[in-house]
C-alpha cells in the first residue's frame, strides 16, 4: 500500500518523540525500545483504524505486532486486505 509506512512513521514521530530525540526508521524497535509504552499504543491503533477504516482485534494488537513501523504495516495490510 503506497505511503503506508511513511504515514505510520510520521504519526509515531509526531505522537511519541520529543523534539530532541533521535529520528526513527522503519525497523526502530518502538515498544521493546521504550519509545512507545503499551498504554500509548492505543492512540496508534485507533489512528490506524480510523484512517484505513479497519478494526484490529485486541488479540492481534500485541506489543510484538506493534514493535516497528515495518511490523505495523504488515498488520494493517492484513486487515485492509480482508476488508477488500
Amino acid at each position, binding site marked *: 500500500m503506497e505511503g503506508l509506512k511513511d504515514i505510520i512513521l510520521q504519526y509515531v514521530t509526531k505522537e511519541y518523540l520529543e523534539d530532541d530525540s533521535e529520528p526513527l526508521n522503519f525497523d526502530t524497535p518502538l515498544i521493546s525500545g521504550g519509545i512507545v509504552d503499551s*498504554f*500509548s499504543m*492505543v*492512540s496508534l491503533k*485507533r489512528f490506524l483504524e*480510523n484512517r484505513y477504516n479497519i478494526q484490529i482485534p485486541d488479540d492481534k494488537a500485541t506489543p510484538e505486532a506493534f514493535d516497528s513501523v515495518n511490523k505495523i504495516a504488515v498488520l494493517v495490510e492484513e486487515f485492509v486486505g480482508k476488508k477488500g
Partner: protein
Amino acid sequence: MAYPEKIRNLYQGLVKAIQDAGLFKQERFIHSPQAADIEVEFPAGAPLKKVINMCSNNYLGLSSHPDVVKAAHEGLESRGYGMSSVRFICGTQDIHRELERRMTEFLGTEDTLLFPSCMDANAGVFEAVLTKDDVMISDRLVHASLIDGIRLCSAMHDTYKHSDMAHLEEKLQLHADKRLKMVITDGVFSMDGDTAKLDEMVALGEKYDAMLLVDDSHSSGFIGKTGRGTHEKCGVMGKIDIITTTFGKALGGASGGCVSGRRELVEMCRQRARPYLFSNTIAPVVVSGVLKVMEILSASTERRDKLEKNAAYWRKGLTEAGFVLREGDTPIVPVMLFNAKLSQDFSKALYDEGIYAIGFFFPVVPQGQARIRTQISAGHEIHHLDRALDAFIKVGKKFNILGKTKQEIIQMYGM
C-alpha cells in the same frame, strides 16, 4: 511452604541486580518528629546527625504542630485507637462524616469520600465510575498511583504529551465516539513542580463533553489564594468533576486521602470503589488531627502565605547562584543535574554539609533528567534557607556546575 535455595537465589539475584544498577533504595532513620530540623541516623548504625530537611511533603509545617498533636490526643481519648472495620460495616464515626463535610466545603465540591490513602483513592476511583465503553486520557507525567488505578479499570486508556493542550484536544477528537471521556492530570506535578493548565482543560472538557479528574495531593492546603488547590489558582473552582487528594502531605502529613467532586460520582465510589469497601477506615486519631488542620487553614492563610514567600526566596537564591532549575512557582523546586550518579554524589555531599535532600533519577524521572528535588515548607525559617543555600553553593562549586548550562553539565558528566 516451600522456599528452597533456588527460590532464595532467584530473589537474591534480583536484589543484587537492583544494587548493581545503582537503583537500590535505602531508608534513613529519623529519630525526631517531622520538621525543618531533624535528627537522622544514616547509614544505619551511624551517630545521629542534625540536618535541615529539604525534601519532605510537610509543606505547611503542620506535621508536628502542637495544636494538631493535641487534637489527635483528644481524638484518641474520645474515639479510641482503631475501628476494626471497613467504613460500611461498623467503621464510620461521626468524625469521619464531619471530615468529609469539611473537605467538601474546603474544596468547593458537592461531596467527599475518605479513603485509607490517596493511593487507594486513585486505585479505586476509575473502576467505580467508568466501564469498557469509556476512555481515560491522561497526561504522560501523572503520578504512579493514577497509573495503577487506570490499569485496574476496564475503560480504554490513552495519553497526551505533558501539558500539551493541542495534543489533548486531538485525543478528545480521536475518542469522540466513546460513551464517557475522562481527562486525568496531577494538579501540581510532583517531580517537576509545574501546575496543570486547568482553565484550558476545563474549557476543552466543556467543548468535548469530557469529565476532568485532578490529583491535587501536592496542592491541597497551599496552592491558590486561600490554599484550596490548583482549581482555585486557575479560577475553575466548582468545575472539576473529581478531585483526589491526600492528608499525608500538607494536611497534617499522617495518612489518608479522599475523592471529592460531583455527588453521583462520589456515591459510585462509596458503592463500588474496592479500596473503600475492602480496607480499614482511617484511624480516629488521624481524622481528629486532620479536622484540626482544616480548622487552622480555614481560620487563616498565614501558613500558605509564608510558604509562598519561602518558596520564592529559595528559588531566587538558587537561580542567582547559577543552578539550572525547572520552571515553576510552587514549593517543589527541582535542581537539575541530568546525570544519575551526579545526583547521588551531590545528595551525599549535601548531607555531609547538614542538608537532607534526595537525588532522583530514572525510572522515577525520565532518562537523562536526574535532579535534586527540593521541597520548601512553611516550617522553614529564612535562616534554614540561607544555610541550605550556602551548602548548595559550596557543593555546586565542588562539582563545578554553577553558572553552567544544561549542555555544559551533560558534557562534563554525561546523561
